[in-house]
């Protein structure tokens, strides 16, 4: 095993094998997105024309222009070439390229998802550690009970409840949108919290924050519950290990044993769990953004499905799958980095 004496060798091989697995999946995902429009009942042009109908000559012309008259495999090849050139088609509703629309709306979803994951990690990990250390106590049962309720929560209903309480009864937060209409400033980062600070307008940041808080809590609910449960079980596993007992036996203070010896090893599976939450967050964004009229990717896709703007749905499907695949790859690599054993399996 001379080759493995290079420190980076195992990691490189690991990276390449993971990427090798991703490529067929990526082509499969493009095939799903491609088939989506072809599987719709009726042909896409008739669907677009709606009840008005379409003139046969005009239809033939459009079919040729959009390539629907070619054989299926050739259409797929054309589609693949376009995708690899960043051309995902044009929205029928706005006449803008799908990719441009996606990039304009993505920061709103990213900001929401980012805040949600921060909430989930900052509350979930300490709650899980605490529950594991106090295993069997009343606080452990309370934390795990709450986590199970969060995990079982229909988040669209949870969002409506929070709106009733905080926007209706207490009138603390606005019902929908990203910021009050009073404020207008140029988009720099696309993150409303940062842009509102950069603009220097008084009250803009508070307004952005008050719009963001409820949707982030709603979106954070399920990841928070999952992370707390996973942290607790990972901690319990590690706390029973010999090296933790040794650390205790040699008289280290409990804080150091838990914080240093146990936590660092327990966090390894938790990292994977956090990474897997990206898919959960993007699915949750569909519901959360619809409830709070948050102008992001989720609401855009739901609106496009009901508007029958199918190129948008096709492009959105592909881009979201691509994001999830890239995040999963990064998580796998991080996992390989912190846990060398996995690289050799």
């Amino acid at each position: 095993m001379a080759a493995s004496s290079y420190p980076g060798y195992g990691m490189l091989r690991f990276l390449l094998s993971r990427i090798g697995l991703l490529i067929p999946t990526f082509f499969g995902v493009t095939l799903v997105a491609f088939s989506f429009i072809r599987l719709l009942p009726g042909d896409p042009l008739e669907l677009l024309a709606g009840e008005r109908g379409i003139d046969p000559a005009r239809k033939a012309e459009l079919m040729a222009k959009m390539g629907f008259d070619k054989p299926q495999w050739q259409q797929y090849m054309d589609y693949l070439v376009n995708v690899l050139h960043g051309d995902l088609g044009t929205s029928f509703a706005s006449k803008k390229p799908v990719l441009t629309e996606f990039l304009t709306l993505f920061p709103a979803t990213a900001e929401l998802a980012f805040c949600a994951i921060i909430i989930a990690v900052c509350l979930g990990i300490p709650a899980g550690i605490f529950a594991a250390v106090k295993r069997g106590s009343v606080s452990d049962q309370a934390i795990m009970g709450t986590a199970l309720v969060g995990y079982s929560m229909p988040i669209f209903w949870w969002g409506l409840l929070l709106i009733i309480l905080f926007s209706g009864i207490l009138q603390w937060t606005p019902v929908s949108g990203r910021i009050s209409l009073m404020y207008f400033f140029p988009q720099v980062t696309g993150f409303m919290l940062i842009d509102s600070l950069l603009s220097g307008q008084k009250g803009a940041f508070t307004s952005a924050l008050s719009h963001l808080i409820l949707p982030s809590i709603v979106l954070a609910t399920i990841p928070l519950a999952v992370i707390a449960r996973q942290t607790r079980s990972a901690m319990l596993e590690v706390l029973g290990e010999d090296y933790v007992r040794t650390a205790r036996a040699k008289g280290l203070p409990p804080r150091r044993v838990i914080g240093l010896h146990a936590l660092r090893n327990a966090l390894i599976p938790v990292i994977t769990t956090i990474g897997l939450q990206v898919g959960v967050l993007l699915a949750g964004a569909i519901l959360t953004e619809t409830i709070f009229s948050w102008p992001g990717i989720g609401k855009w896709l739901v609106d496009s499905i009901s508007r029958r703007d199918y190129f948008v749905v096709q492009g959105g499907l592909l881009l979201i799958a691509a994001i999830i695949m890239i995040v999963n790859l990064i998580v796998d690599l991080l996992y390989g980095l912190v846990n060398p054993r996995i690289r050799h399996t």
Partner: protein
Amino acid sequence: MTEITPNGVDTAALDKESRNASRAMLAEFWYYFSQNKGAVVGLAIFLALVIVAICAPLIAPHDPSLQYRDSFLTPPVWQEGGKAAFLLGTDAVGRDILSRLIFGAQYSLFIGVIVVGIALAGGITLGLIAGYVGGMVDTLIMRVMDIILAFPSLLLALVLVAVLGPGLTNAMIAIALVLQPHFVRLTRAAVMAERNRDYVVAARVAGAGHLRLMVKTILPNCLAPLIVQATLSFSSAILDAAALGFLGMGAQPPTPEWGTMLAEAREFILRAWWVVTFPGLAILITVLAINLVGDGLRDALDPKLKRS
């Protein structure tokens, strides 16, 4: 009346022994399951829901789609303006919410059973084939499952329903399809772990065919993780179906499906809290009960896995 076969085996005694063994297994399972108080409570709630769903026409005070023109948005009985006839109030067109919730239980349990049934049947078949046959077939099946898993499940279900057309049946098919890869992965992993065990080799040497080896020899030993996953999928099926109903892509009004009821109630959230609160509470309680049972099953069926 003992019956001795030509080669001297007492079949009645064998039968009795195997019955005793299964009874002992059941007793052991119940011992571990009942250690978990939450699981027992969850099971009780779930059984109560099943009874409510079965007896819905008998116990519902009103017809779920009957509109009382003199009682639009009547609050629950304990609030000022409430009527004793409508315990949980009425919705915007004067239908009794309690009766709609009771009938909604039928839909939710039906959705769970059908979705898990389809996903289990498909998942076990594909997983058995992938794990048992291996090679190219395995690679092909698993890559297809990877593709399904690359999409967020709710988004894929939403798009599938857009292709198939909105409605409860199509929503169930879509949800079953997106839940299926989990069953395929679990079955495949279990089959690969069992495939080369001595008892399987023994059965093969004794002349068992491929189908018998797959279904009768290996499968029963892979069931524990599948049962746990089926329980958890039952609750995600109910949640996803409600979410699709809420987005207008699942069961269509006036069906008293809980998610669809929430969608209809949305515009009244700031005026009539009860039309929003009760359907969601029904979803939460059902899903919570099933998840509690799932946790208990995991403890009872796999002592190696700690409760998390």
